[in-house]
């Protein structure tokens, strides 16, 4: 039923293949978010005054805090991958666990932001700025959630003893994905919260 391949038996090739696969996937994500960034640019150019007024309704401090949270979570991923490269599975689990926790904090902050917006009668349908705000941060938030799932899966693998200094591909690859999620926020934050 399964097709065993000679090439897959070579771990170096398998690792490089996985890496190319993840970068290809990230390319699709660039275009996915890219279309939204295009919509943002189109409407910002069309309605500069409205954007200036509306963006001030976002909480810059919370946005900045979330940025710090995500950057830190990227850092803990780096530490986790570094740990498993040195064979330290428990340390990997600790760092990835911390990452998942930070991701949860991120989502919690977003939840409070959304709730506050709704409370003030600001919905995706209110105006184009908030359409963009909710769509872009919403899509990003879904990616954060999926990333949490991915990282949890890596922790499970590690707890089952499947990762080591000679095989840590799942950790490295989920790490790449997580950094990308961080990257998108690095652009979302100034575009939505900071630019007047």
């Amino acid at each position: 039923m399964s097709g065993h391949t000679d090439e897959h038996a070579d771990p170096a090739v398998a690792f490089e293949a996985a890496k190319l696969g993840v970068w290809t996937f990230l390319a699709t994500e660039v275009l996915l978010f890219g279309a939204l960034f295009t919509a943002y640019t189109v409407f910002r150019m069309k309605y500069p005054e409205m954007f200036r007024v509306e963006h001030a309704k976002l909480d810059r401090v919370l946005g900045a805090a979330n940025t710090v949270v995500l950057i830190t979570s990227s850092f803990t991923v780096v530490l986790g991958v570094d740990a498993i490269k040195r064979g330290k599975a428990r340390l990997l689990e600790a760092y990835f666990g911390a990452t998942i926790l930070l991701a949860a904090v991120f989502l919690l902050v977003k939840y409070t932001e959304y709730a506050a917006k709704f409370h003030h009668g600001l919905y995706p349908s209110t105006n184009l700025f908030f359409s963009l705000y909710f769509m872009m941060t919403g899509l990003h938030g879904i990616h954060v959630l999926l990333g949490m799932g991915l990282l949890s899966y890596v922790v499970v693998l590690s707890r089952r003893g499947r990762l080591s200094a000679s095989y840590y591909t799942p950790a490295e690859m989920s790490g790449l994905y997580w950094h990308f999620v961080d990257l998108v926020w690095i652009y979302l934050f100034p575009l939505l919260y900071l630019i007047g």
Partner: protein
Amino acid sequence: MTGNGQPETEGNGRGYLAERGWRSWAFTLDHKRIGAMYLWTTIFFFLVGGVFALLLRVELLSPQARYFGNHAYNVFFTLHGSMMIFLFIIPAIPSGLGNFFIPLHIGARDVAFPRLNLASYWVFAAGFLVIIGSLVAPMDTGWTFYTPYSAKSAAAVTTLSLGIFLIGMSSILTGLNFIVTIHKLRAPGMTWHRLPLFIWSMYATSIIQVIATPVVGVTFLLLAAERIFGVGFFDPAKGGDPVLFQHFFWFYSHPVVYVMILPAMGIVSEVIPVFSRKPIFGYKAIAYSSMAIALGGFLVWGHHMFTSGMSPLANTIFSLMTFFVAVPTAVKVFNWTATLYRGSITFEAPMLYALTFIFLFIVGGLTGPFLGALATNVQLHDTYFVVAHFHYTMMGGTVMGFFAGLHYWFPKMTGKMLNEKVARAAWALIFVGFNVTFFTMFIVGVRGMPRRYAEYLPKFQLENVISTIGSAVLAVGILLMCWNFLQGLRKGTPAPANPWRALSLEWKAASPPDTENFHEIPVVTEWPYGYGTTKA
């Protein structure tokens, strides 16, 4: 090619088909089985989409909306287009024949990510099930789903959007798999310039799939968001722009026509040398032209939008780019013709379809510049001229290429030979039926008959009746071809490993191949086009 010179014939002769039971298919990791499942599925939707086409042609017998009415007609052309595009023509060659033959062509045992490959199929299945589910309130917007109508339509737009999103994801995962496979799993000695041209075209296709599909995914996401959350990107009442939908939609949907045509061109590049017993002329030109088409195809999407109110600058640039993108295609046609020249040509079914491709695609391709020129576009946009243009390229091109591939590789995939006489008879019906159906559309299109209407001016009736008769002939031909396939499956004579005396690696494997493709991974020392030399 060196390595084990004898074709591999081990086993009970059933090869990868030996294991039985639905689980051996549903949970298979074998690229050949996954490819076969895609082929069955896509051919099924081709036939369903074809039924909708026949319903359209019946309605068009009369200038009034006499038989089904306007709304039903609108649903029919929407379903015809959507099914043909999303459920047949995009996946058929790449996910069907591509899955089956890419590893064989490069001397690998499977694709880079077999489990992802299986997931791609099931995501595709989820997609078409959701799309079928949306038929409770079928769309009548045309396959292009333009806003504002699609945002307001009472049809199951959100459900359909989800379905198309899933189909797109399947497409992306397949493209991703193929890109990594081609980079990393080539057999020793299989340099880039010894790859079969089918692989070059599949590589270019996969790049398009990976880059373009996410944009249409987001487009449908935003359409669903308009309906669910009241988001206003495409709604003028909220300051949005319906033309923005078109930009996003066509940024994918133009490159996707190259997803459709490139694999078929790859098949033609394989078949022509075999049945001319001549090396392919201009291998590198054909290989690089595939890449040029893939990349150039991203520069022209606005040519679908010339009458939408785009800025003059955008109109001009897109028109100019459209003329450029024809060049690499012409390179291919030239090289195929040069390959044929002074070849020892035989006319088995694969060759008939490959030659048909070249002829019909030239017609379709040449009618493209009429649409790409701004002044004539104003006259021809949304007329039957466009309908004829894309049917000549997509059906006269891709579908004929697909049929060529099916006939060419049928012995390899099934271990059986097809009845050649019936195959040629079916081809003749298809060729005549196709041209009668679609050539008339150029004529009425230029004379002003608009597309997507159940009613038309009485002066167009004669051509429409002729076209409908043609569609009946075409349908008979296709059914005959399908019947031939089924007969071949059940009682075809056993096929040798290499019935066409071809040189690419798949012919070194048994017919049908074993699950592991090759006993030993071959070592490649030359390109697969040494026909007419002492080799072949």
